[in-house]
């Protein structure tokens, strides 16, 4: 069906192009300006997320990035996706990440070891990939316009109808996948809990040995070393 629709697009190609000739390439509409401004905020927040040295601040800047993306979805008239984004990403994934940072005793404040030594190679790879992708994408879709007028393409009604008419089987399979992920996370945590007697005893010599290693990257363990032996059991009991 998609192929047929694409063939229809190819057959009727000249007509929409002629209809959209009124768009000027360098005279952006209000939606485009709003998209550009929110996109700048989103991209800046993403850059801060991957470059900041304060781990908790990275998670908080990730909230700005994901919220900006939700606004972009709203500007693209995909409102249901936008609210799902706010609920799941901003609401639960970031909270999970913050809990993960807390449980792994991420240092509060600046940590000099947030970036690894291959930062410049990573920067080169990322810049090369960005250049290639942007060149290809801009060149491919130079004369393509999204028509945002008319009924919203991503309203809850449209999304729900398509989801429960055409995508029921993947939807149900996905619920099974979520159940499997839930059980998997519980099993991963419980296995460590069953063995928590020996590792919590073992963690004492580990932290005791860390001051002997003159490595600044060890300092989160070394600083919290005194509480190391007692708190994992409390965490597991609370969980």
């Amino acid at each position, binding site marked *: 069906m998609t192929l047929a629709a694409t063939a229809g697009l190819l057959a009727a190609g000249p007509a929409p192009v002629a209809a959209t000739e009124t768009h000027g390439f360098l005279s952006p509409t209000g939606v485009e300006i709003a998209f550009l401004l929110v996109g700048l905020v989103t991209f800046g927040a993403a850059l801060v997320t991957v470059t900041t040295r304060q781990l908790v601040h990275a998670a908080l800047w990730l909230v700005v990035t994901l919220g900006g993306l939700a606004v972009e979805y709203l500007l693209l008239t995909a409102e249901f996706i936008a609210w799902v984004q706010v609920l799941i990403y901003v609401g639960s994934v970031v909270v999970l990440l913050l809990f993960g940072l807390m449980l792994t005793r991420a240092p509060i404040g600046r940590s000099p070891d947030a970036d690894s*030594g291959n930062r410049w190679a990573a920067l080169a790879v990322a810049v090369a990939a960005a250049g290639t992708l942007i060149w290809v994408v801009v060149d491919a879709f130079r004369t393509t316009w999204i028509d945002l007028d008319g009924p919203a393409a991503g309203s809850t009604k449209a999304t729900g109808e398509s989801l429960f008419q055409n995508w029921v089987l993947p939807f149900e399979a996905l619920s099974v996948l979520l159940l499997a992920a*839930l059980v998997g996370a519980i099993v991963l945590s419980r296995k460590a809990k069953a063995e928590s007697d020996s590792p919590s005893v073992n963690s004492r010599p580990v932290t005791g040995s860390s001051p002997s290693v003159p490595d600044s990257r060890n300092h989160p363990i070394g600083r919290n070393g005194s509480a190391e032996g007692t708190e994992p059991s409390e965490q597991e009991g609370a969980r």
Partner: protein
Amino acid sequence: MHLAYPAVLSALLFCTGLYGVLARRNAILVLMSVELMLNAVNLNLVAFDVWLSKTAEETLHSGQALTLFTITIAAAEIGIGLAIVLAVYRNRGTSDIDKLRDTAESHDTDGPDRDALTAPQAEKAEATA
């Protein structure tokens, strides 16, 4: 709206996430960068779905359905990933992915990280003792 705006923003976000995955040392920060890359793909899917649903009158809304599926899979991935990171942290006392080198082939090839290599070996030796 010109289609290049969301496409370029998506490419930029993807490459930001790529840099984060390659350059970060903490495992949870790597997971955050993976989330950035997944979100870039989601933005692409939504933009192309809106374009095709108007231009080609495509009624399946496959882009939005796939976006919902991606969001769900990302939520499952972050749950499992954090459980694994927490298990590793409980066993090793660190979530630093540069120090998890048990499956590295040869320890002699990388010179500047040699001091980082001794720490897990010392920890392992004491854990087995």
